[in-house]
């Protein structure tokens, strides 16, 4: 199966400090890939290079290539907004806009030019259903999103990301700020979403990676130490450092 995203010798520097040191990696479609590793290992940085969110940091420089469906996303003249429409992102801290629930979900479609009320209604409902939160908010769509609980806010953010019909969902420790029950609901949701989306998630929670993902990559000091099917990586790691990390000896 052809990879949907491929990184080739990707290097990233904050000023002169290297954060990613030559990463080459194929990410297959319709699978869940987990990125694990100790804090500061580059896994979140890598995730953010995939939809060019690092562009926002002024001192960042990047070498190498990231191919999305065979095209380099860092090629000159590449439209970042179209890229980010196709590759959605869910952040560690739920960040709904200070607007109504409806307006949060409709924000993306409206931005991309959908004005028709009926179509927006349909997209909002479908996205909220897709994020398994429709039943909880259907009666309060016009209420502020900031009145939702933390877990609900995060599912709303997932719905908001789904509403622009992305191809790939990047999740940056999307459950780390939540209580265990809310986190479990989001995990279930991720497993369901896999049918339609390619999901790449950064997580600190090794059990979560083992439970949810198909493939896992272990990052250390800006390099991918080991990358393979999740079962294999957790049961028979090939690299000593991977073994030490997953058995909790460092990190």
């Amino acid at each position: 199966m052809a990879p949907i995203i491929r990184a080739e010798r990707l290097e990233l520097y904050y000023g002169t400090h290297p954060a990613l040191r030559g990463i080459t990696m194929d990410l297959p479609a319709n699978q869940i890939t987990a990125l694990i590793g100790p804090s500061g290992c580059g896994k979140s940085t890598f995730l953010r290079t995939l939809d060019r969110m690092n562009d926002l940091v002024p001192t960042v420089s990047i070498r190498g290539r990231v191919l999305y469906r065979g095209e380099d996303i860092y090629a000159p003249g590449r439209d970042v907004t179209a890229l980010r429409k196709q590759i959605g992102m869910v952040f560690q801290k739920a960040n709904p806009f200070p607007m109504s629930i409806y307006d949060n979900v409709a924000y993306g479609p409206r931005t991309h030019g959908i004005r028709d009320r009926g179509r927006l209604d349909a997209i909002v409902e479908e996205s909220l259903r897709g994020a398994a939160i429709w039943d909880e908010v259907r009666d309060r769509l016009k209420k502020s999103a900031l009145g939702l609980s933390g877990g609900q806010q995060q599912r709303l953010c997932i719905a908001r990301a789904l509403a622009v019909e992305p191809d790939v969902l990047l999740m940056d420790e999307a459950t780390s700020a939540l209580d265990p029950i809310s986190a479990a609901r989001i995990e279930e949701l991720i497993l369901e979403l896999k049918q339609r989306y390619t999901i790449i998630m950064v997580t600190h929670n090794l059990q979560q990676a083992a439970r949810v993902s198909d493939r896992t990559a272990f990052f250390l000091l800006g390099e991918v130490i080991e990358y393979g099917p999740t079962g294999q990586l957790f049961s028979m790691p090939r690299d000593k450092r991977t073994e030490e990390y997953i058995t909790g000896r460092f990190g």
Partner: protein
Amino acid sequence: MSRLSPRRRAYDMAVRALLYGSTLLTCGLLLALIGYILYRGVPGISWAFLTTADSVLQGTVGILPSIRNTIYVILASLALVLPLGVGAAVYLTEYARNRRLVGAIEFATEILAGIPSILYALVGAVVFCQVLGLGKTLLAGSLTLVIMTLPTIIRTTQVSLRTVPQSYREGALGLGSGKWHMIRTVVLPGSLSGIVTGCILAVGRIVGESAVLLYTAGLSTMMQDFSTIEALMRSSGATLTVALYVYAKERADLAAAFSVATVLLALTALINLAAGLVGRKHS
């Protein structure tokens, strides 16, 4: 790869044009303002202009009296408003326990900050000039300005008092010093730069103020006698802003008015610079 839709591209361009256009307009206005004032004002500025009084006989203009009056008003106002304002701020941050009283004082400060200067002029003209019998004098003007600048001093002092770490206070009190001693030796020195900033802002307001002084301090551009306390109490005259108004409106001497404007512009720039420097040191 799809590019931004034409509609969104147009939106982006329009917003960009608005942002740049507005900023350019703001900066352009300022530059034009400064340029024009300097163009018309600088030629009239000379050593004699700054160091003499108007002379009807020689037909020359000099703003020394206005400069002296301005300095008088600044010093007299600050001498009163500084202890009052700092004291009020100390009360609010260090002493007050009664929330309703704190609320009342802060509310009053807000109201004072929002009152337009023409109303201060009206009140000053009656309370100080008439009722207290001071007449139109620099003293009456200064007293009115005390009320006007009080909120500035209270607020900036309050803000800087809050930045003094609680641990300093506890440290001082823990060593057995009394509250007043603690305030005098730890809290006030720790917030000095904030108090200085407040003073600079107050000076800025006083230098720029005209309505209050026009109606409470007088219009004379003659040299005042500052030699004795009694003379100080009685002197009456125009500060720089009032002098500008008098030259422009009553004597139709626009050249002199623009030269005064140039001096005021330089003072404003200096005051902003000073406030910026102290503020930077503070943070």
